């Protein structure tokens, strides 16, 4: 589709751009204490964006801007996930006392720009577009991570993030240029065609290029061994940003990986078909090993953490590993499982971080000591946190179990060369129970009954309800989610 025709289907992104500009201008006229208003601008804007995405749901999958990005149900699903997490994080940001000393205008504006980047990440089918969108998201993340400019840890987080980000995007760009050199095009579909036509099945240049591209992907979803930035950045950033980074870019990152693998290496018609092009390289095994290492590393290091925020950072690495388990299969079932996991992970992980914010607002700390007896002082917060911990461990009847169940089901269904991944994933859940329930232990078992009960502020209470209800309810009845995911499993594909 030509550029002018495409605009009609690009409405959500255009609205976003307008909102961001409006937010920037409004911010100029506001006193520091009133900058929360920008959050309202962005929040309401995002709801309008969501409505326009829903409005476009009947458009048949197609490419926009001369094969730069696509619009298909899959990208709409990821966009909705991104919008949901952004909305929740905006509300939490109003209540995050860490941010009180700063103007929040830029904060919300930058978040808005990041959403545009995430949208493009989830829908690009061109390696140039892919790279640009990743950079938009990364640069905005660097700024947000370092937003607490008076706090050295936040500055450290920003700097570390920049260094790792710059390095891995450089490596990825190198990989992309090798692939471009082999294929002669930046378009996914042309690349797929050319790779399939390569003489030698395992062309060393292609393998090299692919590995380098995977380094970029791995950095974005914080997979081992590209995860080293994660703990420090997550610990130093404002907690709301940590929560956001652990969910939204991860969702977009997985969308990007799924699209890339599926459209460059499958034959374009059926998702279940084998990967083509570099058949001699055991990709499923390589990704499987990376997934297992990611989970195991995340879980084992999480056990030793003193700070709950840092523990959740490692736990989010482990969760990336669980989702990666399904990547080697890359069938319809596998993509479905990853989508379900992303959706339930959104609620349980954001919820856990919101508790960290609530507690930090109250006690000023985020170590295990600050949670001592929390369950007795703030029973609601304690119970909800227990629910999130259960869900993150993946115990029924919570949403986290449903997520893991679908991943495991996919692997068992894919045949017995994947059983070892199931066993590894299952054992990792057992390991993760230990540190998740360490939180529960500290909250309930280490404390004494207190006579006065403290309730969290109303907005935090609301946020916790909004994240807790799906974390439990989706574990008991997830038919609506499944049917939505199944409807969204339509990709734009093209064979030349």
């Amino acid at each position, binding site marked *: 589709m030509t550029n002018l025709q495409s605009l009609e289907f690009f409405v959500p992104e255009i609205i976003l751009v307008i909102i961001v500009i409006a937010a920037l201008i409004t911010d100029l006229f506001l006193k520091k204490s009133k900058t929360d208003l920008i959050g309202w601008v962005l929040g309401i804007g995002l709801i309008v964006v969501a409505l326009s995405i829903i409005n476009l749901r009947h458009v048949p999958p197609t490419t926009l801007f001369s094969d730069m990005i696509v619009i298909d149900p899959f990208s709409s699903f990821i966009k909705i996930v991104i919008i949901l997490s952004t909305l929740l994080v905006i509300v939490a940001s109003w209540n995050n006392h860490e941010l009180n000393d700063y103007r929040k205008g830029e904060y919300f504006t930058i978040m808005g720009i990041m959403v545009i980047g995430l949208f493009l990440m989830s829908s690009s089918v061109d390696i140039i577009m892919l790279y640009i969108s990743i950079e938009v998201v990364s640069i905005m993340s660097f700024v947000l991570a370092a937003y607490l400019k008076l706090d050295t840890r936040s500055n450290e987080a920003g700097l570390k993030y920049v260094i790792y980000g710059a390095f891995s995007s450089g490596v990825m760009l190198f990989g992309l240029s090798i692939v471009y050199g082999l294929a002669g095009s930046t378009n996914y579909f042309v690349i797929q065609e050319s790779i399939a036509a390569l003489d030698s099945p395992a062309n060393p240049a292609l393998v090299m290029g692919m590995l380098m591209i995977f380094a970029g992907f791995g950095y974005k979803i914080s997979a081992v061994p590209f995860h080293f930035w994660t703990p420090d950045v997550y610990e130093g950033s404002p907690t709301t940003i940590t929560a956001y980074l652990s969910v939204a870019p991860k969702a977009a990152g997985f969308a990007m990986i799924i699209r890339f693998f599926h459209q460059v290496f499958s034959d374009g018609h059926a998702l279940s078909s084998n990967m083509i092009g570099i058949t001699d390289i055991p990709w499923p095994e390589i990704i499987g090993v990376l997934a297992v290492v990611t989970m195991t590393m995340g879980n084992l290091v999480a056990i030793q953490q003193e700070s709950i925020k840092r523990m959740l950072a490692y736990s989010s690495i482990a969760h990336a590993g669980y989702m990666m388990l399904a990547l080697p299969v890359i069938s319809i079932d596998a993509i479905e499982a990853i989508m379900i996991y992303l959706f339930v992970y959104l609620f349980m992980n954001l919820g856990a971080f919101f508790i960290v914010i609530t507690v930090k607002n109250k006690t000023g700390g985020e170590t295990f000591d600050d949670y001592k007896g929390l369950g007795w002082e703030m029973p609601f917060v304690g119970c909800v946190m227990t629910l999130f911990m259960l869900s993150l461990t993946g115990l029924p009847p919570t949403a986290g179990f449903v997520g893991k169940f679908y991943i495991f089901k996919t692997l068992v269904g894919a045949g017995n060369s994947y059983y070892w991944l199931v066993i590894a994933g299952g054992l990792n859940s*057992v390991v993760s129970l230990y540190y998740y329930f360490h939180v529960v232990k500290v909250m309930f*078992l280490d404390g004494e009954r207190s006579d006065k009960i403290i309730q969290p502020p109303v907005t935090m209470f609301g946020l916790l309800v909004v994240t807790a209800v799906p974390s439990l309810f989706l574990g008991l009845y*997830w038919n609506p989610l499944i049917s939505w995911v199944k409807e969204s499993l339509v990709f734009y594909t093209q064979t030349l």
Partner: protein
Amino acid sequence: MDNILSLLIWLPILGAIVVAFIPRDKEDIIRYTAAGFTGVQFIIAILLWRKFEPGNGSMQFMERLEWIPSLNISYILGVDGLSLPMVLLTAMLFFICVFVSWNIKKAVKGYFALYLLLDAGVVGVFLSLDFFLFYIFWEVMLLPMYFLIGMWGGPQREYAAIKFFLYTLFGSVLMLVGILGLYFTCGKTFDILLIMERAPEALDGVLWWGMSAAKVIWVLLFIGFAIKVPVFPFHTWLPLVHVEAPTAISVILAGILLKLGVYGIIRVNYGILPNAVWWFAGGLAILGLVNVIWGGLCALAQTDLKKLVAYSSINHMGYSLLGMAAVVAAGAANGGDLKAAQAGLSGAVFQMFNHGTISAMLFILVGVVYERAHHRDIEGFGGLASQMPIYTGVTALAFFAGLGLPGFSGFISEAMCFIGAFPVFKTIVVLSTIGILLNAAYFLWAFQRVFFGKLNEKYKDMTEINGLELFTVIPLAVITLFFGLYPRPYLDLIRATMDQIIEKVAFVANFASM
């Protein structure tokens, strides 16, 4: 009364919700509410038993509801001769244990809310006939148990709680893999009855890593259940957890949760993979022997009364395993001895019921003395017989029941297990009689040290067992004595179902030997 089974499951959940809404200072109201809900549940369970047709070996009172159609997950409940006695036992013990926990002072509201949730989980496992549902109930039990041990337990309670949780979760993860294996090989369904029908054929000749899939799945499921039983070498969590848990929770744990393991093996492993029973029976008998001897020896070495009772559980569950292994006697290769198979399997199932009542009694009685002396050191007492004659009498009865004295129900079921297993596993049965000897030795020796000899001066003001405590023990003692003298009613109740299971295993065995 169409939904009587659902009622049994959801009533305690409703109770937990009601308790959650009672202000936390109204402790007595909370206790009475818990007693009320478990009491009504017990009455419903009795009604169920009265309406149950013992002659019919298949599932009764079935309920079926669509749940997640895209995965073929349904809400299916049913009860048969295997699960009915366990449901009755569960309802009764949960009712009794409300009174055992009457003196809990700390966070009464939380305690009873979790207690009722645990009740729902246990009953749910016994009644569910859909693997997904089964798994959910199986896991739902873990969280209340974690808190009940971790919050109301002894000094090392936190360690015990997480150890229990980790152990069980490890088992259930393997079980989940087994369940998924069955799901995909048996035509994408979680319906246990449907899988029972299809599995022997569907798994025939299927290989995983060069091994028969049926055997792999059997082992995966078995480990999950064996941890609950607990079968050696997965038993190490049990003594610790028992020692740390509050009395009522020890009673529930020994009386019911351990039975879930045996129940699971018979329902799932025997029902779905009868071919593999044939392959694994020898191993099962050996594990039974190890449980009997090892549990007995460990019990003998204990100085903590509660730990002794805990190890006696391991010892007693060994008989049950031995009885289960006897099912293969019905196979043609073993002479098609149907009587032995019946005796063995019925013995195993009877043993799990009897152990439920006897160990419950023992733990309650240990709790009684702990309440007064604040320790359980066997050597630390002495001469209590003169101080607490009634307590001594009741404990003597419980100990004799525990050591399998004729006239008590434990004797009947243990004898049945031995009789059943003898034709096939002669050496093992002969060796495990050593266990009986150990069994008698540790109980009698402990009894002697606690109750006879000179009265320890410290305890000359020790008060006699009170009415409430007697009220919790007497019904169990009556059941033990009654079935010890007249086991017929119980055996009639389970016979038809047992015959079905035996027939299935025997058929497969005969088929294989042809």
